[in-house]
């Protein structure tokens, strides 16, 4: 079987000079350049592609493009493997590997097909009914069974090796779809000077012009399309994108388009992305997405070989491929006759079955003139053929067309069916357009728009070429006129196409006599006419409910070929007109989108930006283990030799208490505050007083939110009369700046103050420990480092090796400590210099773990205590709250709940055995033997190993904390089955008088 289903003509778009080899289910086939996986398989006589979702019925191709519900395959192997790919959308590329899904052991013999025999067990809503009882069966028996049976392909378990990119575009007019109306509108808009993007899903521009026998001006439709594309290509204001699907229409005319960049290229270069996601903000969107042919429901209408008539035509005309050699054309309208004529052109005589009593359409007459007889007033009742159709039962319809009066069996190898056309209104609907039902074409069309979106051509229900072109040229010109002042209209050329007679309102055939074969409506979700009947019999009325109960239209194809047929059937049973039944809502994406494309380049290290301090390279060279602090990478500890984390942290912290340590605090937020009202502003922002802070002094400040909760803390220093330097925690730096800007711009615009982030301008180095004074004196011999010269909370400007440095005497560790600030570029130099001079003082770097240990045992609060649920009283900061002035959040502090004396407050905890570390997050309870639910007193916020006392120590926030000091309680973690007896102590575990920082 080597391409035995190719036509002999070469008028299509494939290149028979270039063979392409591919593998399907392990067999090697060949197709040609320009083929899709679908057309190449059909050319090789392969129609059986996969098994259906619920009943595992053999399935083949229904369509030729995005509408395809059946022919889904698993592509490639290993990390490139991709499930549920529609074979009609895959361009053939050398070495392509595809296999069938949802079948075992093979697509020819599939065990799951037993479901088809047992189909009475799987009626509509079977998930809701069958597995409800007994309840205990759900988790152990039903759920694993369903999980195993459900789903189509297999997701790969390996990381996606491909590269995906994002692109942002702006244009005046985005045209979606390059059929006649799309091309016309793009040309008119571009000629009028607008910036135009034209997007086409397929590898070739032209849409229906590639398959319809029409003329435009003095050219064939196909020639006119190619001529128009050449014109557009030559214009600098036009971007043409093929293989590009606009799948989503979001607010403010933001559309998203997926471009298949290199899937069709045999060996793409390394940095060529596989796909590119375009975010296009368009001034106006023209929806020229065309229409999709509708199937007809009849007995066993899902066998391989039963296709849409338009698909059969496109396979012949574009891919030079025959879907069969003994075709039956089954239709309720005239358009399918063009497929019949195409078969005749290829010397194949089709059998034509038409539900209508007659038709005088031009194509019908042409077929008749060729001597083909047409079975009018007839329909297909049933089909036969297990893995591929081999015959059809054609019946004569009664006058009401509700039963067959006679039946005959006819051999065939394919059926090409047409139930008329459905405008592709998905994008308009996504854009918020309220659709209306057009009775002439029995379909919904866009009506009341909410966004700047205009549907034209078949998508607008305009099914004639003349109308499509006229709309295209007019709308393209009108919309582009909003953006240019050229006022240069393009006239619509004359066009010629056959005239069509009206379709018949009949989309579901009666059952054959004495049989009840399944008549499918939704092929992908295996929803048949009987399922819709059952849903209505069981009382479901709203179309949204019928949809969910039967799952009609809920598969990956979003009901592109089934929604309207389902609706029509509901309206028939309910004896309501379709608009009364209503329609379901369309949502993005129109076609499935690879997760990789949505993620783009934001994977791995690029998931978030990484911020590094200027000293980062030194940390790396000195064996630092890093930890993420927001976006920052900070050294967590610096292990030596085979040290584990605990030993390294204890060594680093102990060295600060004993000698001197150095810590990179560059990440702290820094905000420069200037202006005559700066002191007043700080006075309003912080809970304590700021007006009288002397120049050259720093002060610790706490700021609240309006609800009274502590928002952030830090030291702020006065550099001159109207100039302050604020520091914030690393975590809240950005939020504090927004907060300050809010109060300055929105609440108190009368204050003359400016704020600016200077976090990245300064590099901060903390030098802490009893030997820090001697070390700094050696580094800055000009500065008087004595307690009088530079007292606690003082600051001084100096320089070293010509580098300006600002030295603050502030401490987070509770030791005598300084913070040296230099311009960022000199951070690394200063750090190295301090390390060099510090050697004789036994200096060691310490990371964030030791930093935490030091502050925890001192009882200094940090993010774990300032968690947005604590007021100053709770965390021992009541002395920071001024009683004399008002400030942000002050009024909240006098609310009843905030003044209760037994609020949860900060305490210290020491395990009674002095050995067991208390996990952070543990609950504190009073009675370990009480029956649950046990009242919870509070929780452990921070834990460390106290290097001062050599035992574990924790900070906790517990009910009536101050009065519990000295008591024994339990720290419990039920999930870890931990219960630790603890003694409550003061949170100021080390140096409660604070004498060291002032020494």
């Amino acid at each position, binding site marked *: 079987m080597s391409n035995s289903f190719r036509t002999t003509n070469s008028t299509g778009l494939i290149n028979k000079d270039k063979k392409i080899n591919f593998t399907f289910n392990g067999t090697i086939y060949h197709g040609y350049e320009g083929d899709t996986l679908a057309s190449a398989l059909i050319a090789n006589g392969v129609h059986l592609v996969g098994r259906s979702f619920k009943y595992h019925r053999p399935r083949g191709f229904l369509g030729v493009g995005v509408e395809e519900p059946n022919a889904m395959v698993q592509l490639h192997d290993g990390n490139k493997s991709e499930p549920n790919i529609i074979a009609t959308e895959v361009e053939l590329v050398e070495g392509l590997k595809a296999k069938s899904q949802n079948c075992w052991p093979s697509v020819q013999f599939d065990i799951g097909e037993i479901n088809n025999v047992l189909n009475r067990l799987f009626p509509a809503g079977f998930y809701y009914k069958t597995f409800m009882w007994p309840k205990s069966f759900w988790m152990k028996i039903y759920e694993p069974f369903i999980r195993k049976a459900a789903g189509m392909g297999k997701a790969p378990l390996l990381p996606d090796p491909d590269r995906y990119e994002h692109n942002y575009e702006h244009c005046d007019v985005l045209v979606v779809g390059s059929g006649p109306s799309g091309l016309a509108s793009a040309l008119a808009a571009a000629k009028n000077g607008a910036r135009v993007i034209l997007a086409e899903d397929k590898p070739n521009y032209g849409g229906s012009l590639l398959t319809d026998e029409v003329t435009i001006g003095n050219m064939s439709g196909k020639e006119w399309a190619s001529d128009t594309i050449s014109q557009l290509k030559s214009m600098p204001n036009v971007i043409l994108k093929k293989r590009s699907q606009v799948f989503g229409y979001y*607010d*403010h005319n*933001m559309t998203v388009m997926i471009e298949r960049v290199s899937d069709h290229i045999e060996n793409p270069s390394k940095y060529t992305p596989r796909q590119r996601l375009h975010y296009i903000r368009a001034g106006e969107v023209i929806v020229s997405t065309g229409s999709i042919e509708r199937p007809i429901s009849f007995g066993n209408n899902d066998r391989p070989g039963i296709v849409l008539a338009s698909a059969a035509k496109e396979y012949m005309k574009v891919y030079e491929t025959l879907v069969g050699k003994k075709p039956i054309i089954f239709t309720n309208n005239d358009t399918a006759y063009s497929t019949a004529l195409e078969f005749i052109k290829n010397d194949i005589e089709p059998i034509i079955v038409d539900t209508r009593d007659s038709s005088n359409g031009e194509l019908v007459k042409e077929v008749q003139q060729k001597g083909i007889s047409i079975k009018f007033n007839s329909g297909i009742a049933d089909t036969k053929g297990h893995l591929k159709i081999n015959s059809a039962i054609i019946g004569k319809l009664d006058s009401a067309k509700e039963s067959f009066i006679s039946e005959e069996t006819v051999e065939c190898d394919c059926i090409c069916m047409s139930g008329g056309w459905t405008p592709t209104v998905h994008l308009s609907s996504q854009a918020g357009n309220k659709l209306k039902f057009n009775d002439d074409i029995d379909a919904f069309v866009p009506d009341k728009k*909410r966004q700047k979106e205009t549907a034209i051509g078949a998508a607008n229900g305009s099914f004639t070429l003349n109308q499509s072109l006229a709309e295209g040229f007019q709308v393209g010109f009108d919309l582009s006129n909003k953006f240019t002042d050229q006022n240069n209209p393009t006239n619509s050329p004359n066009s010629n196409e056959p005239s069509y007679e009206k379709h018949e309102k009949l989309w579901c055939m009666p059952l054959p006599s004495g049989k009840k074969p399944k008549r499918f409506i939704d092929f992908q979700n295996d929803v048949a006419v009987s399922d819709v009947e059952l849903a209505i019999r069981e009382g479901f009325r709203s179309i949204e409910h019928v949809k969910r109960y039967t799952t009609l239209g809920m598969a990956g194809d979003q009901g592109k070929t089934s929604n309207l047929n389902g609706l029509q059937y509901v309206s028939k049973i309910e004896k309501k007109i379709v608009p009364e039944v209503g329609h379901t809502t369309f949502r993005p994406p129109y076609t499935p989108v690879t997760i990789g494309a949505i993620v783009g380049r934001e994977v791995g290290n690029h998931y978030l930006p990484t911020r590094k301090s200027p000293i980062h390279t030194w940390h790396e060279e000195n064996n630092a283990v890093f930890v993420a602090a927001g976006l920052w990478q900070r050294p967590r500890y610096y292990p030596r030799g085979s040290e584990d984390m605990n030993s390294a942290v204890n060594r680093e912290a102990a060295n600060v208490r004993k000698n001197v340590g150095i810590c990179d605090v560059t990440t702290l937020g820094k905000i420069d505050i200037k202006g005559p009202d700066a002191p007043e502003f700080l006075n309003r922002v912080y809970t304590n007083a700021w007006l009288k802070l002397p120049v050259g002094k720093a002060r610790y400040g706490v700021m609240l939110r309006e609800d009274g909760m502590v928002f952030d803390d830090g030291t702020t220093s006065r550099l001159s009369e109207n100039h302050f330097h604020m520091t914030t925690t690393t975590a809240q730096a950005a939020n504090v700046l*927004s907060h300050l800007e809010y109060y300055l711009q*929105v609440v108190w615009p009368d204050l003359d103050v400016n704020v600016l982030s200077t976090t990245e301008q300064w590099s901060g180095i903390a030098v802490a420990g009893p030997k820090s004074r001697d070390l700094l004196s050696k580094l800055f011999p000009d500065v008087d480092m004595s307690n009088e010269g530079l007292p606690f909370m003082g600051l001084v400007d100096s320089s070293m090796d010509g580098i300006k440095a600002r030295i603050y005497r502030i401490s987070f560790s509770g030791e005598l400590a300084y913070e040296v600030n230099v311009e960022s570029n000199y951070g690394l130099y200063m750090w190295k210099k301090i390390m060099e001079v510090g050697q004789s003082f036994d200096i060691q770097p310490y990371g964030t773990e030791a930093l935490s240990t030091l502050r925890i045992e001192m009882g200094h609060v940090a993010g774990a205590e300032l968690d947005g649920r604590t007021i100053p009283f709770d965390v021992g900061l009541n002395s920071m709250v001024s009683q004399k002035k008002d400030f942000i959040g002050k009024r*909240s502090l006098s609310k009843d709940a905030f003044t209760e004396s037994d609020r949860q407050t900060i305490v210290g905890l020491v395990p009674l055995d002095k050995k067991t570390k208390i996990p952070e997050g543990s609950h504190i309870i009073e009675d370990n033997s009480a029956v649950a639910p046990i009242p919870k007193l509070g929780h452990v916020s921070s834990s460390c190993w106290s290097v001062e006392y050599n035992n574990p120590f924790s900070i906790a926030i517990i009910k009536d904390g101050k009065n519990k000091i000295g008591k024994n309680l339990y720290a419990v973690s039920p999930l870890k089955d931990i219960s630790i007896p603890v003694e409550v102590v003061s949170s100021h575990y080390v140096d409660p008088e604070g004498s060291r920082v002032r020494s």
Partner: protein
Amino acid sequence: MLEIKCPYCGKRSQNEFSYGGDATIKRPQLGEEISTEDWDNFVYYRDNPRGKHSELWHHVSGCRQWFKVSRDTATHEIFDTCKMNEDFNV
């Protein structure tokens, strides 16, 4: 993704901005005697209208200015934007 016109910078995509809530809320004066109910109304209670809403936005990844936006909460239509010391034209 919305497209918002910053009164200082012009039209930018929503991801450059952060939302700041109801623009009609007035903070009580500093030092003002205020009942708990009034204070709670200021801190916590907000209307949640369907339709036109005056709100604050902050051009965080831009000029860092706070400004006012008149937006339809149901359709996201933006009627107007203006600086803090201006009023909407529509």
